[in-house]
């Protein structure tokens, strides 16, 4: 369970370091290059710690296999949460600029207007 949480946190940090993802849920999102690198490093470290933890608890045979499977599943969980999270945070987002922007198509619509 701890390893799963570590992997989930690791992927969350990685996702949060991507401007495209973070702008979907956080107002005026801007991350400097240093913070992005720091978040990715922390995310990778968490995932490696999870591997170490699983090898210690599950053994050298099952540990890496559980880790590899959990790595995929936890990444999918992060992707699914990121998919529906903007519905709840959308009203807090700034309105799109009149002339549009490079990421306009990626910005979610407000809740209730998502699918017609």
């Amino acid at each position, binding site marked *: 369970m701890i390893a799963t949480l570590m992997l989930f946190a690791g992927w969350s940090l990685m996702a949060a370091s991507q401007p495209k993802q973070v702008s979907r849920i956080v107002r005026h999102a801007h991350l400097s290059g240093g913070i992005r690198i720091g978040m990715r490093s922390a995310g990778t470290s968490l995932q490696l710690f999870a591997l170490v933890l699983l090898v210690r608890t599950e053994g050298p045979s099952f540990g890496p296999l559980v880790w590899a499977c959990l790595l995929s599943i936890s990444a999918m969980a992060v992707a699914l949460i*990121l998919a529906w999270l903007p519905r709840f945070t959308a009203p807090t987002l700034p309105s799109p600029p009149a002339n549009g922007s490079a990421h306009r198509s990626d910005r979610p619509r407000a809740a209730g207007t998502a699918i017609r």
Partner: protein
Amino acid sequence: MEPTFRASMNWLHTWSGVVLGSLLFAIFWMGTLSVFDKEIDRWMMPASRLAWPADFSYDAMRPAYQAALAAKSPSVLLLVPNERTPVITGLWRAADGSFAQHMFDPRTGAELPDQGTLGASRFIYPFHYSLNLKVLGIGYWIVGLCGMMMMALCVSGVVIHRKIFTDFFTFRPERKIRRTMLDLHNVAGVLGLPFHVVISVSGLVILFSLYFPSSIWAVYRQDARLFGREAYGTFARPPAKRPADLVSFDTIVASAKSAWGQGEPNYLYVFNPGDAAAYVQLNRSSEDVVSNISHVAYVDGATGELLSAGKPEKPAAVTQRFIAGLHFIQFRHWTLRWLYFGLGLAGCVLIATGLLFWVESRRDRHRTLGRSGARVVEAVTVASVTGLLIATLAFMVTNRALPLGTSVFGVERGVVEPVVFHLIWLLSLLHAWLFAGRAWVGQCRAISVLAGGAVLLNTVTTGDHPIRALADRQLWPIAGIDVTLIISAVIAALAAIRLARRGRAGTGSSMEAESR
């Protein structure tokens, strides 16, 4: 020839996906179900829902052996009961040449009534690796081709994915259906890539002797037995033509365990039963390791002495065993079993969304140009995705709806179930062709009704309702199947409602556009 490498890969990815996508989905779906094949067996064979005795004595297998002896079978395979299969399974050939499978109670040794079903382990699991097409081994070759193409699809998919890192977590369900399908296809493909590659490669490695026979043929020519002896240390001897009884099964197992140390056997294969030259092949169970290990021992049936024990395998065989073990998942690890199930479903989503994206990208254009390509692919996609789910559920519902021992038009239930499966699958294709885009709604509703009906029928016919099954440790496999069916019913109902709403909105907007 396409102008660039990426364009060539795009062509390969698109067309191999469209041509083999339906078959790949069927293979992935059946493989995903096979992760819990023993649990589905318990669900379909109520008499086998027994408690596994912790103090199991191998001598409880003797009545099964005696039954095979009475049938004058030249050999008998006895599968050792375990947590997932709490019954002794005996397989032997009867005097009339027919092959039979019998189940015995591990506590008393008493034979259990024939359950009149192939269950998952004799229908769903073989479908996964052979499509149940045994003639000339054609099914194995088709599945092998699909495995090869799955690897090609994985590689070409990575090559053509322009923003693999930027879109790593991108899934936008609020966008148009075509974009949503592509996002889901990318997420399931990229995030599950290690699993999809490993499962495809390992599937091919398991049947290496079938797909790559030249490597064995080059060394051993036609002598497959010599290959077996040298690669796996197989042992054989002719019958002595003198009657003799088998020593205690506990003695035989103890003798085998002296060769491989700790670990229990997963089967006892008795050759020349009832003869003085009877010998028993035992294999150590792979429950506690990833690798599909082969620690085979041969024990003299009359004396209980160790005749032969497999030598340590060479690195190539050890590697093959490990890769095969990754695919077979014979180990006892429930977390991994569920993770495999989840990733298997992700594989199904990957294939289904790939097909749907192709259809959505071309539907309008083909309709305008009067082409039928998109319609044909859509009908096949509907039948191979929701249709296959309906057929699988119909297979299970037939098992619970027809009482044990009943026959339909003189055909026993064990035969009726696969017939219903194939018939319903075919009908789903017809329905998909007739109703085109609306077929999704109808088939999702059918899934919901059948999944709910399966749980209800199981409750009525066995009394093992989900709450009772959850409360009883012995019935957890049944609870697992029932809960999964209930979740499936709810998801399918929600999908049907949403698709119907989307369909009405689409019709409304098109009528509005026409009236302008």
